[in-house]
């Protein structure tokens, strides 16, 4: 219940931030979130900053160039945009860190089941990709050509898909036999 309430609070906060157009308030919100997010706030800020850095850089530089050419540069807009996007990313990073989605979805067994299978398959795909890279590197001292990498990647990708499908079916049958899907 607590996780669902925090999830709803995050949703409301995110919508509220898009309704604020004053950099002072957004800056205050950023400071407030950092203050109340307790220990690990530096890591939280770093994560949020890195997540939005490429987008903010592209837009800010593009806007600066365009504003310089057309002589319509508004520094307050740049501040507003950067603060808003960073604050939204910070709120999301905080939610990702502190809200357990599985608990937040308590009462929705179908959604929880789907979510758990998707998460487990993502882990399987990622592990297979890591193992594949390690296997390719260990078998040859010469780096593979682009063509070889594409062909090997396609073969491994399809093999990984077969494996993921097998695992997923086994997981579903296991859950079914234990009554986990009897809603």
């Amino acid at each position, binding site marked *: 219940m607590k996780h669902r309430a925090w999830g709803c609070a995050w*949703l409301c906060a*995110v*919508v509220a*931030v*898009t*309704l604020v*157009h004053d950099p002072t308030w957004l800056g205050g919100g950023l400071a407030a979130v950092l203050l109340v997010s307790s220990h690990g706030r530096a890591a939280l800020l770093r*994560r*949020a900053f890195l*997540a*939005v850095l*490429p*987008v903010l850089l*592209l*837009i800010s530089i*593009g*806007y600066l160039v*365009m504003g310089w050419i057309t002589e*319509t540069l*508004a520094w*307050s*807009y740049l501040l*507003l*945009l950067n603060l*808003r*996007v960073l*604050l*939204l*990313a910070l709120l*999301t*990073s905080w*939610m*990702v860190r502190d*809200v357990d*989605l599985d608990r937040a979805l308590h009462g929705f067994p*179908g959604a929880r*089941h*789907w*979510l758990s*299978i*998707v*998460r487990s*398959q*993502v882990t399987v*795909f*990622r592990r297979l990709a890591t193992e594949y890279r390690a296997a390719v590197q260990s078998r040859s001292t010469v780096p593979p050509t682009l063509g070889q990498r594409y062909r090997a990647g*396609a073969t491994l*990708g*399809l093999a990984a*898909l*077969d494996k*993921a*499908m097998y695992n*997923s*079916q086994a*997981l*579903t*049958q296991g859950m*079914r036999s234990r009554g986990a*899907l009897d809603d």
Partner: protein
Amino acid sequence: MHIPDGLISPQTYLPALAVAVPLWVVAGRKLQARLGDEMLPRLAVFTALALLLSTLMLPLPGGTSGHAVGVGLLALIFGPWIAFMAYSLVLLLQAVVVGAGGITALPVNALAMGFVGAWVTVALYRSLRRLGEAPAVVIAVWFAVMVSALLLALVLGLQPSIAQSPDGSPRFFPFGPAITVPALLLPHAFIGAGEAALTLLVFRHARKRRWLEAPR
């Protein structure tokens, strides 16, 4: 290609939410009617695949990012409604687990990529099937990627006109369609080609394994 939080105005995402919610309800009912012990694991695996494809992001000029989408593959295997639902879940997971994309932008992203992308793929695939499977899949997926990119470019490009400060400066995304349309369409012409090839590869494999769930 999807839009992050903070770049589109409430005047855009609230109407998009009003359109998306009934479509999610319809898609949810269709999914519920077809979901069984065989389909659920397949759908979950392909949803995970689409999620992975869409997490490999490349920032693009114009403020968004480029990556394979995966919705064409979902649409060809499960049909457009279920693909829309599954891709909405992909976007939701990206927003709340990975922290990519955004929750306020979710309805716009889901409609442009999930709904329109899935329907364009299926409609084109069905009408072009007489040319052969490979050209039909490749053209359908490439075109769907381009249509979705065009829609998102237009949504972004309209932001300076939709939400402005009293002094005329933008409040959300600052560039008009003259910048966003080429900035998104040009890279997605290449991304779409890669995605089409990948979709064809996996689609043929899925057909060989008898995983196709969409009505042919």
